[in-house]
């Protein structure tokens, strides 16, 4: 056993301790921030911070592969996907504050904290001053990455292959829940649409909202020449604004209004 390994087996090196005490509080702050943020986007960003902290821990613990995977896959891919989804579904916090069971929240907090204390104390007692074992063997022959590759294709080969069933199920499930299959007859081609438009009474483009109106907002209908709102300029999916009454144009406008 080399001197360095002996050191690793018995004590934590200074560098590791310093890194831990710097990154540890940051990761913990990220976790707390994630739980207590009102805004879902902020929560996600706090979680990114925690995950980056965990990635650093893995590097320090001589698990470079895990560290890289943590940062690239979790922080890089999954969390960003998460942010995409949050942006798509809207980010307003719509937490229900109505308690269906009286006192449920308080009871849950007390029980949760007590449970965490129990498990934390138990695990802390078990691993405090526990000897470091297995690092030598795990990284002996070609290092961490080679060792992971080896056990992935020997001891854990079946778990690895079985994961493919999981991925197929997930793909099928996503298709089932999100994909609406269209009948061939209900899909209108550009040609159909064009024919229908020229057959209609108004082949030209419709007026957009806001044209000649007092505002160019999307919820303002266009104004016709007589000052009435144009009904067919309404945008779909939003409620149109009520226009102020048409001003009376009988009075002659004053000339040369000073700017």
């Amino acid at each position, binding site marked *: 056993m080399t001197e360095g390994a002996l050191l690793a087996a018995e004590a934590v090196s200074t560098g590791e301790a310093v890194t831990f005490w710097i990154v540890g509080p940051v990761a913990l702050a990220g976790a707390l921030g994630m739980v207590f943020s009102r805004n879902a986007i902020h929560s996600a960003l706090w979680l990114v911070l925690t995950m980056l902290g965990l990635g650093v821990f893995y590097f320090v613990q001589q698990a470079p592969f895990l560290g890289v995977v943590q940062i690239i896959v979790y922080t890089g891919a999954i969390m960003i996907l998460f942010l995409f989804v949050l942006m798509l579904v809207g980010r307003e916090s719509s937490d229900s504050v109505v308690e269906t069971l009286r006192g449920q929240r308080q009871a849950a907090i007390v029980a949760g904290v007590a449970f965490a204390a129990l*498990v934390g104390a*138990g*695990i802390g*007692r*078990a*691993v405090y001053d*526990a000897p470091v*074992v*297995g690092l030598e063997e795990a990284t002996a022959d070609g290092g961490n990455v080679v060792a992971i590759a*080896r056990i992935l*294709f*020997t*001891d*854990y*080969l*079946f*778990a690895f292959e*079985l*994961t493919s*069933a*999981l991925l*197929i*199920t*997930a793909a*099928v*499930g996503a*298709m*089932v*829940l*999100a*994909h*609406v*299959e269209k009948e061939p007859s209900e899909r209108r081609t550009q040609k159909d649409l064009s024919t229908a438009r020229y057959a209609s009474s108004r082949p030209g483009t419709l007026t957009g909202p806001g044209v000649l109106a007092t505002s160019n907002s999307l919820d303002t209908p266009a104004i016709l020449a007589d000052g009435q709102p144009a009904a067919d300029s309404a945008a779909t999916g939003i409620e149109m604004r009520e226009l102020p009454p048409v001003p009376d144009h009988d009075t002659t406008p004053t000339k040369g209004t000073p700017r």
Partner: protein
Amino acid sequence: MIDSPSVSYTGLSPVLFVLGAALVGVLVEAFVPRAYRWGVQLGVALAGTLGALISVILIAGRNELTLSRAVAVDGPALFIEGTLALLGVLSLLLLAERSPDMGGSAFVAQAAVPVGTVRDRQLATLTYSQTEVFPLATFALAGMMIFAASNNLLVMFVALEVLSLPLYLMAGLGRRRRLLSQEAALKYFLLGAFTSAFFLYGLALLYGYAGTVDLRGIFDQAAGSEKSDALFVIGLAFLVVGLLFKAGVAPFHAWTPDVYQGAPTSVTAFMASCTKVAAFGAIIRVLYVGFGNNDWTWRPVLYGVAIVTLVVGSVLALTQTDVKRMLAYSSIAHAGFILTGTIANSPAGLSSTLFYLLTYGLTTVGAFAVVMLVRDADGEAGHLSQWAGLAKRSPLVAAVFSLFLLALAGIPLTSGFTGKFVVFRAGLEAGAAPLVVIALVASAIAAFFYLRVIVLMYFSEPAADGPTVAVPGLLTTISLAIATAATVLLGVAPGAVLDLADRAALFVG
């Protein structure tokens, strides 16, 4: 250069048949025109499950660990795989039922179309349905088989996910009362994901304790170890939470009634029978193979859990007014009965658990198949008051349902009696007399609500606008006939199957 692990394809053949059917099913979904899909999918799925059943019979008696000790091929594993394949066939027949008299298929035409839209109402008038349920069901079945056969906690975890994901999806694909069905799927998914995390955390702690996820490795590490037991005990506790959730054992049972009620009844039949079999298969393997020498850690806990389960299941079932919810609580109570045998930690405990799982699964599939038959204009007539006087409308269906209820209650000459008898005997031999007494009281309470339904069916006046009893389609008829025959046979002449369970009760590894 690494040596690839040896694979016993013969030993794995039941799993490979079902997994193969699932993969072919996904391809069928992509390439076969919609008009033929239903038939082809049913054929593929049945070929896979029947193939698995036949290969289990052919390789019975094998004892080996394959794929670097990841998967066990031994008596309990093969017995559970055979039971799952048989129940899988029966459930697939129910899943595939689409006779017009029973309201067509139970599955939605397109799950992605929002509930209540114009398009949704349009699709409800069409006959086709989402045929993805067949590959999903076979994936779930493969996951269940591996779940009960894995000798390695990591494989067990992946198998747990493989069996759970399709079930979450299938629960949400109901054609009628779609919002209820989707709510059931969401509840099941959230709670299931939560307990999967418990399982995974327990796995990690046990790895921290033993340095291995191999069940035998954990057994060896725990024998005569000087290490602190804290990681071992906490890890085991978390692991057991994950397992008990899948088995629907109180206090982790809260999802059961809602999910059983909301999911399409054929899916409920599949979940209630197969999932319970797989979960108990995994529980006995983990506890006996991995922790058999340390039963002071889990026996007292499971003793208490069994009592809570028995009380919750049988007492709350009394208050139910919906047939599916009543059967859900009855399934919770049955989990308690099975635990009575399991905590024995003896070969008798193992063989009685295996036998009980088989009888319970067959009876449950049958009972839910009958629930599919009693219908009114809105679909299935779930409320118990609608079942009043059913015997006058349809004596045969009422008689068959009564048989299943009597079997669930454990009346002599039905399979349920034999099952209860063997688990109680195993519990008594292991010195769990108080538990057996509580289980007996619980079965008396349970018998009351089963008999109440029978009384309701036979001695009440039928409601004026009561439900009609649909003529079962061919597939449901086959399924019901097998379940009925098995329930009677296992009650009258259980000897051969009991022998089989006894001979199967030996773990490898």
